[in-house]
């Protein structure tokens, strides 16, 4: 999986989106994506395990799908992404299957499930809608996100922030983090793969000395904005969303250079049961409507061809994400053991 290639592709397609998006999105520019009008109506019962974290926005998408498909009986089980991934695996082990579809905010959790051999293959025309580099036979990335360092603009200047994630452990900055959050755990997994167990353990120990834990990364960004901490670890969209609601918010985004600190990750969805319904359900999430909604409202990076990226994200060619195979992020168990050993979980 060429993360770097992906980012460069985005940049080439016009992802450098510092331009104000005052112009309503033009549908012509999004001709590549399928519209919901072209999709079959969904009929029947389906159970979705939804790795929460995005609050109202994913709910709005699901509500819209429900409204469009009166014949669909959609049951949703909400939980932390990692918890749901683990329950799916534990359920399969016990011979119980409850979920038909699993929508995770993090590809590590997806990998955990597909590594257990539980994902059903997706048809080629579905995966073909995704940008090159994001086409997997067993799961569909829905949106992308970049790891960032939100910082309080009153308390820090960009120059005070090290451009290496590893250097932060030795800094004196007050840091906010959400160790229980799946995206954070994926980030630690990436660090483990890039820097090794020992360095990651030392890093966690170092950071935990001056870190405050929050339940989620929105909490982290809010704490940064309030000035409770100087700087935090969070996915990019929390900061963009906060700034959208509060334009004078005292929070800026910093990126590290070519390390786990600016990992690019994806939310994804996979089918756990056979049949057309789960597949067609997944198709809905890859439509132009849903993708541009998630980009414009949730500030996530759309991954189907021909949908505009969110505004407010700095030029992606200025970011250099690390070279990490997304599927390897599924190796969560050692990460959890490590975090537990250090005592941050």
């Amino acid at each position, binding site marked *: 999986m060429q993360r770097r290639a992906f980012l460069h592709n985005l940049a080439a397609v016009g992802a450098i989106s510092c331009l104000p998006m005052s112009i309503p999105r033009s549908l012509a520019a999004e001709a590549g994506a399928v519209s919901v009008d072209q999709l079959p109506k969904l009929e029947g019962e389906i159970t979705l395990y939804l790795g*929460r*974290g995005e609050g109202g926005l994913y709910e709005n998408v699901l509500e819209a799908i429900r409204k469009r498909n009166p014949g669909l009986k959609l049951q949703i089980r*909400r939980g932390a992404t990692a918890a749901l991934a*683990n329950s799916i695996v534990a359920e399969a*082990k016990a011979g119980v299957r409850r979920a038909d579809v699993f929508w995770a905010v993090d590809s590590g959790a997806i990998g955990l499930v597909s590594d257990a051999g539980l994902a059903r293959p997706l048809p080629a025309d579905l995966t073909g809608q995704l940008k090159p580099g994001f086409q997997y036979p067993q799961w569909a990335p829905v949106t992308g996100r970049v790891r960032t360092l939100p910082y309080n603009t009153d308390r820090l200047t960009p120059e005070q922030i090290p451009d290496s994630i590893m250097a932060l452990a030795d800094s004196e900055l007050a840091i906010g983090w959400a160790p229980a959050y799946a995206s954070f755990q994926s980030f630690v997994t990436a660090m483990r793969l890039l820097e090794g167990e020992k360095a990651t353990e030392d890093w966690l120990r170092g950071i935990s000395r001056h870190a405050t834990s929050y339940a*989620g990364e*929105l909490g982290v960004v809010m704490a940064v904005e309030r000035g409770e901490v100087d700087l935090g670890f969070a996915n990019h969209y929390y900061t963009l969303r906060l700034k959208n609601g509060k334009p004078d918010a005292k929070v800026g985004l910093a990126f590290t250079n070519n390390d786990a600190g600016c990992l690019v990750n994806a939310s994804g969805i996979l089918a756990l049961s056979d049949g057309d319904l789960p597949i067609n359900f997944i198709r809905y999430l890859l439509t132009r409507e849903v993708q541009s909604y998630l980009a414009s409202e949730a500030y996530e990076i759309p991954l189907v061809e021909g949908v505009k990226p969110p505004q407010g994200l700095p030029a992606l060619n200025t970011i250099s994400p690390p070279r990490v195979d997304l599927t390897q992020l599924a190796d969560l168990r050692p990460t959890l053991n490590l975090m537990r050993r250090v005592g941050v979980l």
Partner: protein
Amino acid sequence: MNLRPALRWPASYPLALVIALLAFVPVGVLVGLASDSAELFDAHNLKVLSNTLLLMVFTVLGSVAIGVPLALITAYVQLRWRRLWLIVLAAPLAIPSYIGAFTLYAAFGRGGEIQQLLGWPMPAVNGLPGATLVMTLYSYPFVMLTTRASLLSLDASLVNAARTLGMTIAASLWRVVLPRVATGIAAGALLVALYTLSDFGTPAIMRLDTFTRVIFVEYNAFGLSQAAMLSLQLLVIVGLVLFLESRVRGSKERPGRHLTLWPSRAQKWLMFLVFTPVIVMSIVLPLAVFGIWLLREGAGGFDVAYAWNSAHASFLAALVAVVLAIPVAHAAIAGRAGRFMERLTYFGFGVPGIVMGTALVYVGLQLPFLYQTLALLVLAYVLRFLPLAVGSVRSTAEGLDPSLVKAARLLGASPREAFQRITLPLTIRGMVAGAALVFLEAMRELPATLMLGPTGFETLATYLWRVYEAGYFGRAAIPGLLLVLMSALGLALMLSGERRAEFDVTGK
């Protein structure tokens, strides 16, 4: 009751025994689960243990420090609106502590609601001090009520004797009154300890790694066996507290005249100064924060189905609990063995919700027809809250004069008819009260509901939790206020009627 001489045991015994053994299912499951686990105890465990114990000890000390003076005031001091003061001071019991933790967390700290509204910079409430503060604010009424009950059972003539012998009021309260209510204070303190040990929401929101929080983290990582091991360690502490509680026996005094104190104006003001911060922090603040959120964000996102789901599951739990409580209560009255069986069911009340959840998730995975069903959730509620129903049913059944049934039998009624026309109508009040208590406790229950609820089954408590986790605090207003309202009804029930005996430890 026993009409078949062939049976040596009263008819209710076999059933009661089964139900009592059911209460031990979670422990059996946990032992089985934990035996897979390699890590018995590690360094982090030690930290968790010390956090848990520190929180417990500090909360008990805080509750005694607040509860005992308030008990003295509400029991002895002549104030206007005494009854009202008592209700207001006991009202924190009506607020689930996770709601208190949530609102205090949101109100304090930089950029908290207080700073936003009034511009006063406030320290953040979190960690061990924060959790201690919250737990103390919401559990001191246990100490206050048990101590007050003991105080009211004392005869004032001893104090009067001490006063005639030249002791000051303060000294006689300290040396004559308080030593005699030590058991009342201890009973309340142990309740506080139990409540603190099993609380899940407060340490989670205050970000303090206690057993309940760490068990939830393990469960989320599906380290079920590690969660089970931690659960067993927690149960050992709970067992210790329960054991201590069973040793606390009140001494009974011959009832006499109540002591009454008439404060001066200055003393009244002083008492008012003691009352106010406690009431403001524990009741006014959460309601105000919910009020602000409601005004600011309206009722968005709330679905009446959440309230309905809460009520539905709680109602089923109440019904089942009372049906199961009847044979247990009967057995408890029938003999010593039955009394022992009743004691066994009490164990469930000490099992924290998070521990019950862990055990039953595993049960569900082994018995897939139960997994993620309402039945399993109701079972968890029943196992936890059965003792409340048993206590209610037993206390009314005990009050029943057995000669009434005998008279009915003598007049030719069959045992069935005697039960239907005499026993049932006379105990129905206890059953209703017991059912109501189970209903209200089940409404407030959070961790087991999070773990066991069926897919798509959002209750008031789980919705509140989801809103907290996602950071959409404003949406907590409606479910929060509804939960407080529900719990207030439960408290009203507890303070009036049957349950007064529950707090009257020395009076038994």
